[in-house]
């Protein structure tokens, strides 16, 4: 092996390391962001509802890592993670959650409606399953405009039972649209176990429409990235839609106020949190591969905490929109 090759290998290794450190940073960013959302909410500083993404970070980050900035995503009521993973900045996110003027939607959307079109984020959605049409339409648009953009539709296991999903997946299959349906299967819809609401194997549903359909450990960001990458590449090159079922778990309540969670066992929660934390899983792998040591990861955490703290400060200090804005943006 000559020196040139070794150098290249090292460069590749570095890129590889940087990539996973970046992914780690982003997952941690979501985790710490959400912890602060929790505090803002319980501290009475955030109005409305907060559906935390803690525990599911590997799904948004793994999938979005396989996307380009100009690719589209649609998101859900549990959407902070998707926004951050697709490139939203922490300060404007917090500002939106507090209903402040510099928020992504000037305070009009709030937690359930953050949109960031500059980063390809077509918006979160308060209607369970409501964005399936939008993502599919964005894919149709990409196809008609002959860009090679791809659209990803994030949705929960509960959304599997909204009829709209089957209507649009059927069209995506027929027209070979570049859209990937990513089901974040966190086992519960609100306070009900998915086995009580969802018959059969979810993967079989898109498969019945001829849509390539796979399942992945949603706590393993590298696995999610690899699986999503396959779907994205196929879609980008005209191969049509894909469906990815990500097995995951929300570590917290359905929303911040869901404290007691009588609908699930403490041991179940503890098991996931102890053994299946996506941030720790990647951190462990990074250490094991000697791509990072404890100090390096701590350094990342310090940086992330600083970024998030600054974001919170920014949002708390930011002004509310002028009340007259209430009547603006109804019509374009």
């Amino acid at each position: 092996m000559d020196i040139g090759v070794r150098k290249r290998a090292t460069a590749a290794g570095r890129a590889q390391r940087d990539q996973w450190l970046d992914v780690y940073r982003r997952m941690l960013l979501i985790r710490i962001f959400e912890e602060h959302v929790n505090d803002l909410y319980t501290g009475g500083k955030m109005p409305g509802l907060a559906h935390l993404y803690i525990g599911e970070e590997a799904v948004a980050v793994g999938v979005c890592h396989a996307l380009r900035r100009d690719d589209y995503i649609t998101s859900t009521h549990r959407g902070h993670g998707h926004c951050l993973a697709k490139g939203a900045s922490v300060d404007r996110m917090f500002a939106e959650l507090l209903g402040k003027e510099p928020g992504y939607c000037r305070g009009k959307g709030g937690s359930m409606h953050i949109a960031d079109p500059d980063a390809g984020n077509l918006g979160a959605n308060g209607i369970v399953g409501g964005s399936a049409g939008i993502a599919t339409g964005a894919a149709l648009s990409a196809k008609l405009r002959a860009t090679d953009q791809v659209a990803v539709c994030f949705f929960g296991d509960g959304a599997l039972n909204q009829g709209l999903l089957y209507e649009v997946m059927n069209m995506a299959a027929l027209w070979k649209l570049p859209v990937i349906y990513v089901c974040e299967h966190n086992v519960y819809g609100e306070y009900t176990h998915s086995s009580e609401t969802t018959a059969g194997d979810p993967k079989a549903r898109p498969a019945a429409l001829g849509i390539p359909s796979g399942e992945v450990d949603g706590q393993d960001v590298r696995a999610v990235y690899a699986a999503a990458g396959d779907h994205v590449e196929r879609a980008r090159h005209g191969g049509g839609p894909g469906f990815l079922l990500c097995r995951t778990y929300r570590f917290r309540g359905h929303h911040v106020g869901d404290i007691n969670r009588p609908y699930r066992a403490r041991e179940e929660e503890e098991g996931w949190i102890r053994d299946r934390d996506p941030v720790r899983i990647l951190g462990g792998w990074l250490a094991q591969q000697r791509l990072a040591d404890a100090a390096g990861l701590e350094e990342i955490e310090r940086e992330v905490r600083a970024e998030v703290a600054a974001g919170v400060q920014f949002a708390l200090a930011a002004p509310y929109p002028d009340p007259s804005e209430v009547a603006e943006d109804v019509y374009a």
Partner: protein
Amino acid sequence: MREMTFGQAIREALAEEMRRDSRVIIIGEDVAEAGTVFKVLAGLVDEFGPERVIDTPISEAGITGVGVGAAMTGMRPVVDIMFGDFITLAMDQIVNQAAKVHYMSGGKLRVPMVVRTTLGATRRSAAQHSQSLHAWVSHIPGLKVALPSTPADAKGLLTTAIRDDNPVVFYEDKMMYQVKGPVPEGEYVIPFGVADIKRAGTDVTIVATSSMVYVALEAATLLEAAGISAEVVDPRTLYPLDTATLVRSVQKTGRAIVVDEGYMRYGITAEIAAVIADEAFDYLDAPVKRIGAADVPVPFSPVLEDRTVPTAHSVAAAATALCGPASASR
């Protein structure tokens, strides 16, 4: 009389009717163990079991359709649509199926179903969880529409809704569940189509629906201080609508304001204002005024959302403007 909350009154009506009639069942998302996200149905599953308090998938069209079919074949389902905003998903089943089956079948089939759902903003829930879309169903022959404002009315009207042989859409303001008031014990039925005068007055009629009744009552107190006597009339059902009581009140006062939390344009206030302007034409000293939600999707930010809803002050101001010149002329 014992006091209970609006939510408890709803629950009591359901429990009593379920005890009385085994055909009454509840179908909806998280209605059983969770007792709905508003906790209104808490405990019912313990008494009546999961066969009669049925947790469903998140399938608003589907559960409404299942309700229609069950109602046509001997059951009396109460379908729970968590947020009134989600009725958008069930409109075909409500309007093209439930509302029309009796008529299309020449009177042979019936759909004794209640759709319980919610309206009302200011929970900082933004545009898809805050709408008051009750005008849509009120537009449709074959449907009845009730929207109680007090715990007692909630019990009496829900009992009537469950016993009605027609599809009834029943609206509860999410912000009212904790409101307390006296509620009669035991069987309590309020006929549909009977408005209730929540406060008597002589200078101006304020027609108010659902939680707007409280806004109107507060406005009436403000107006009283200003020497204006307001009568607050609550229609309680939008269909059938008790136009006689509304018109009689306006014949007395000569002025009317209609307050409803839905959008004004092509909404509830339009119908009620048009009816009053027509039937009380010769008695009106001033045009009928309307107050409703601001003509925008409901924004999240509290500073914005608070600007979208009628308030006691905005109602009182409208009433003062209405009475001002005329009072002067008296």
